[in-house]
């Protein structure tokens, strides 16, 4: 952020205490041969540019357009998701759960921040926050209200607390009015939060009527 460069001999650098401590640790671990600094760059680039929620959105879109894929996803999500190339760390054992008008699914990890990295990337800060972890299991409608989501009274909510190594992907409901869209266009409608269960998917309409979700 700062325009200042780190001059040699500069006593009060712009770097924070954490920047300095992390740099110190990285230097020691590199000198000891425990890490390859180039591997750190690849790891960071991977999660910043390659592995993220667009992967999950493609899984959702495929399940919306391909009934055979949807059945596979229901029966063996790990294999169905891996078939699209999304597998591995923090997604070794996947379960997909589908939203319907009668049932809304929401995912949390109250014990830490377990999250399906291969399909959604790294968890957002709010997912890791004490507020979300504490409240999602006890006050899901209140948490949904924090996201601006109000569900019909009759909709039952199911909270999946990821307490082991199984990771959950919410398949949101396909919105009405999207019959003409292709798979890529459908994927573009799917947000990260809708695959955690804290948002719904809406069709992009030209002029939504005020107060109407249709």
């Amino acid at each position, binding site marked *: 952020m700062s325009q200042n460069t780190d001059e040699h001999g500069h006593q009060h650098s712009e770097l924070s205490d954490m920047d300095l401590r*992390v740099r*110190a*640790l990285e230097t020691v671990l590199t000198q000891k041969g425990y890490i390859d600094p180039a591997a750190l760059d690849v*790891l960071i680039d991977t999660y910043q540019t390659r592995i993220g929620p667009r992967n999950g959105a493609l899984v959702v879109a495929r399940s919306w357009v391909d009934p055979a894929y949807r059945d596979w996803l229901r029966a063996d999500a790990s294999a169905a998701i891996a078939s699209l190339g999304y597998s591995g760390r923090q997604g070794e054992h996947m379960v997909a759960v589908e939203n319907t008008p009668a049932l809304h699914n929401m995912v949390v990890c109250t014990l830490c921040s377990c999250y399906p990295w291969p399909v959604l990337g790294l968890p*957002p800060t709010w997912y890791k926050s004490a507020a979300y972890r504490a409240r999602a299991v006890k006050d899901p409608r209140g948490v949904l209200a924090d996201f601006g989501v109000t569900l019909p009274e009759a*909709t039952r*909510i199911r909270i999946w607390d990821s307490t082991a*190594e199984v990771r959950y992907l919410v398949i949101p409901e396909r919105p009405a009015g999207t019959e003409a869209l292709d798979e890529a266009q459908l994927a573009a409608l799917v947000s990260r939060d809708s695959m955690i269960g804290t948002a719904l998917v809406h069709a992009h309409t030209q002029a939504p009527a005020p107060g109407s979700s249709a």
Partner: protein
Amino acid sequence: MSGATMGTMPQPTPYVSHADLGGQAGHGAVLPEPEGELFHADWEPRVLALTLAMGATSSWNIDASRAVRETLPDYPQLDYYRIWFAALEKLMLQRGQLFSDEMAAGRMLHDPAPVLRTLQAGSVTAALAKGTPTERPATTSARFSVGQWVRTRAEAVDHHTRLPGYVRGKRGRIDRVLGTHVFADSHAQGLGEAPQWLYTVVFDAAELWSDQTLEHGGGSDVSVDAWESYLHEAA
């Protein structure tokens, strides 16, 4: 409050997890963020990467690292990547891989303790794709089946566990049978994988929260993934 003053025997320090947050009050509203915001400081992605790279050396397993994180005394005051950083330092200090004077000096002062492997840049993609699956071949038949009523263990334990406090001693129903998986409690203590059957157990919110007002239409259910030894049969 010393033992001598109170006339009691010294007690072993009980295991305290600061991470078991489900149902706690007083944490305020959830603050949503846009999809692209992953980090909030330059050091955060470095800590992520250092943690993953050191994890790849197999010096500890994920359950042991979770145990170290959740028992950090200042856990409640730390944000996510500070917890990761503090735990990484502690895991390495415990193993003689790192020394406090090296952190202060910012350079190596002691010979390295050998690690099994060093993750090279060219191997990152394959290592991430491989992951660390926890399912193991079943050697017993599952004790519980889908639809069966169970009650979770009521007692606290003195080690890392993955049964959240809010479901302890509660009656729920087996919703899924997930196969046989590495048992986190054992694995975290360095006692081996000791795989057990794992189940998804679903609870009606009214069973969990006695103060819950359930006038909201459809109500809610909460499930956890629980190992077999966490569960008893229930009527």
